[in-house]
């Protein structure tokens, strides 16, 4: 069988709803796309722990401190699980982390921004995790089975984070005027990055969709997010900084303003407001903890 014939057989398997496991044969293009996508996801999990992590010492109560610490641990854990999945596609964890901390690979745009107030922590917990879970639930149908297994684990934890975030939002929105303003201010600053999060309109031939690694377009994911969360924000009396945002009955979809995509490309290109600081934090830990990796590698086999 020629390489082209094997690729055609593989594609037919995917189109038929078939799955691919770590040791299975796969076309080079599939392997490279899956690796890049999952590596970026893993990078985003470990970088995403940092904005919230800075608020652990400043959490307003012991209950919030415990739950936030646990959430941050979960996010880093997702990174560990996803790097393991990506490693099987042919790149070592060391190489992936080295590329991340030296700015050679990307992570999600939203984690390049500062978490300025406790209102931001509530926003991230409910709405950034909400946006993430919309994306991640769609990945439960991915063609790459080890990724699906990881997503089962991640989605279960993200739904817990979502409730944790929603509880904080309810607390702020049903509290004093100053508390409501704290959350409104967070929404005003985070809305555009959240719209960026789903990415620009999918290309006509998105290869991630073609190979079933991703199963839904950026547009359909953004629509689901808007339908799930915008009415709830309005019910809480929280306005959204987009005067065009409204459900369009005749189109059966949302009308919304295009965010500034130049800003998006600048941020994901490594020029966000917190990119340098966050990468330096991760690089410092990576470098100073090298001895732990060396110690692990040197543990002899058990008798």
């Amino acid at each position, binding site marked *: 069988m020629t390489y082209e014939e094997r690729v055609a057989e593989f594609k037919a398997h995917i189109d038929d709803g078939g799955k691919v496991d770590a040791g299975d044969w796969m076309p080079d293009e599939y392997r490279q796309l899956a690796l890049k996508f999952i590596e970026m996801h893993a990078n985003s999990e470990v970088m995403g722990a940092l904005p919230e992590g800075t608020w652990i010492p400043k959490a307003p109560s012991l*209950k919030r401190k*415990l*739950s936030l610490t*646990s959430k941050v*641990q*979960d996010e880093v*854990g997702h990174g*560990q*699980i996803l790097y*393991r*999945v990506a*490693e*099987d596609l042919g790149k070592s*964890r060391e190489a992936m982390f080295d590329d991340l901390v030296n700015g050679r690979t990307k992570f999600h745009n939203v984690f390049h921004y500062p978490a300025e107030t406790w209102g931001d922590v509530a926003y991230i917990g409910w709405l950034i995790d909400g946006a993430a879970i919309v994306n991640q639930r769609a990945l439960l149908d991915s063609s790459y089975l*080890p990724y699906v*297994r*990881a997503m*089962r*684990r991640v989605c*279960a*934890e993200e*739904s*817990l984070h979502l*409730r*944790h975030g*929603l*509880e904080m939002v*309810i607390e702020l*929105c*049903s509290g004093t005027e100053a508390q409501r303003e704290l959350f409104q201010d967070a929404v005003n600053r985070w809305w555009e990055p959240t719209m960026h999060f789903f990415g620009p309109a999918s290309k006509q031939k998105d290869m991630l969709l073609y190979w079933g690694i991703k199963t839904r377009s950026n547009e359909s994911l953004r629509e689901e997010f808007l*339908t799930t969360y*915008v*009415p*709830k*924000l*309005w*019910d*809480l*009396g*929280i*306005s959204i900084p987009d005067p065009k*945002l*409204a*459900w*369009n*009955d005749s189109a059966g979809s949302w009308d919304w303003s295009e965010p500034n995509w130049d800003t998006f490309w600048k941020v994901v290109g490594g020029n966000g407001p917190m990119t340098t600081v966050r990468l330096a934090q991760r690089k410092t830990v990576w470098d100073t903890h090298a001895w732990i990796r060396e110690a*692990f*590698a040197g*543990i*002899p*086999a*058990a008798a």
Partner: protein
Amino acid sequence: MEVWDVLGKRTEADEWTVVGGVKAPNDPHMAILLARESFFRHKEGVAFAVRRRGTDEVFVDDEPAEVLGGLTDRSYRRQEAYAGVGGRLRRVSKVLADRGVRIDRPRPPDQRIRAADP
């Protein structure tokens, strides 16, 4: 460092299912420790095990099911700690609607029904 498959059981009646993997030294105890921290912090099941990739031997963690996930009260790590949060959102939304704070903008049909709930 070796690759270990991680297996779990949600209930005693379940068969072992692969839930993911860890990379650990050539020592099942280390692999079990890493698997527990990566996959079983939230009382996800009653038992877990590791298996060196490419082999059949399964190493089962010997912690009793009731201890797995810890005995300290860490309910904040689990869904039940946030039970009722959806109902609370509806109650708070109703109070805010009565106060005239709710924002009325065109919304999808199913959301209109939800918003009209008493």
